[in-house]
């Protein structure tokens, strides 16, 4: 739930626009730090259980589809690039171009979710579900359900943040259409960019940890 100032550029209690933009950026970075620590909890669970059951993690990870994971990484990185370009174009006051880039970013995010849906659907079909719903027997090693519990927790929370990002950017697109932003005032776009890059950053770490275990 990031914060965005109203259409009137300057709020009463700020001295000037630059101070307001700076305050918004600092607020956003603090919010990103809370996101890092939120995901951090799951990285701790991953690290400890991988250290305890290394061979089970290796056996279980073979059931993850690396090609789908890699395409997802590529999709997210390109959406990160298009998001950065969207910010660049609004800085240059090119509203149309910014809108197009934002739309591409949203489309790529949806592609990411669709690929994720296929992966989940495949696992639901096989029975590799978290916790007590886990019925798959093929995996050697102790307690393979823990791997899938952590997998679903991490990718689920990340997917939830992707959906949040899509909502935020579509809201931005409607605002750009009503040309609420210009090169003088584009803070919400920049905030969305920071948020989206963090979501991409977290996936950059998730992908090797979950898909490339040896």
């Amino acid at each position, binding site marked *: 739930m990031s914060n965005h100032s109203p259409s009137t550029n300057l709020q009463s209690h700020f001295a000037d626009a630059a101070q307001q933009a700076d305050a918004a950026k600092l607020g956003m970075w603090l919010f990103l730090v809370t996101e890092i620590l939120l995901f951090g909890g799951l990285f*701790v669970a991953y*690290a400890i259980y991988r250290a305890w059951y290394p061979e089970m993690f290796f056996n279980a990870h073979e059931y993850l589809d*690396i090609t789908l994971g890699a395409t997802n990484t*590529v999709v997210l990185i*390109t959406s*990160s690039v298009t998001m*950065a370009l969207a910010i*660049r174009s609004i800085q240059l006051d090119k509203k149309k171009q910014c809108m197009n880039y934002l739309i591409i970013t949203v489309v790529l995010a949806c592609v990411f979710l669709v690929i994720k849906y296929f992966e989940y659907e495949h696992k639901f079909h096989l029975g590799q579900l978290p916790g007590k719903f886990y019925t798959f027997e093929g995996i050697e090693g102790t307690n393979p359900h823990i791997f899938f519990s952590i997998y679903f927790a991490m990718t689920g929370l990340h997917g939830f943040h992707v959906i949040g990002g899509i909502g935020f950017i579509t809201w931005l697109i409607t605002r750009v259409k009503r040309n609420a932003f210009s090169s003088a005032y584009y803070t919400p776009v920049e905030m969305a960019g920071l948020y989206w890059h963090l979501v991409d950053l977290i996936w950059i770490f998730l992908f090797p940890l979950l*898909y490339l275990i040896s």
Partner: protein
Amino acid sequence: MSDSKNNTIHILPLSLYLSIGSILLVLTAITVWVGVSFDFGPINLIVAMLIAATKATLVALYFMHLKYDSKVYLSLFIGGILFLAIFIVFTMLDTMRRQDIYEIKGTPLNNMAEMYQGLSTVDSISDSTDVSTDVSTIFTDTIQTDTTQQSSDIKID
């Protein structure tokens, strides 16, 4: 003393964004290639993490403008990661060092979860110090020799 003076709008050239994007894609390809074909064992994890870290710093410096903004944001970002590192390292201090004095303290009683008790396919039950719940067999020789032998050569660090 708010540091908003050096916030002149930084518009990076299009070429920079595209080149950073392509480097990221190349690095992804490398990490997949290394992950799939080579098998160095533990080093593989370090290599994967290094590649992911370089990708992360690229995204953070250029896409998130950390390179051009005031150092406060960079220190916040690094601080967040530092506290996450503290959380991981200090918890591992406990979970990885439980069997320092007694081997038995580190390993679960029966490390196969209940849901797998019946499955015969899994043969890894035997290696752990599995103790069935029946108390009378509690003092099978494995336990006895293990702890008495253990307590004689105590490793006091």
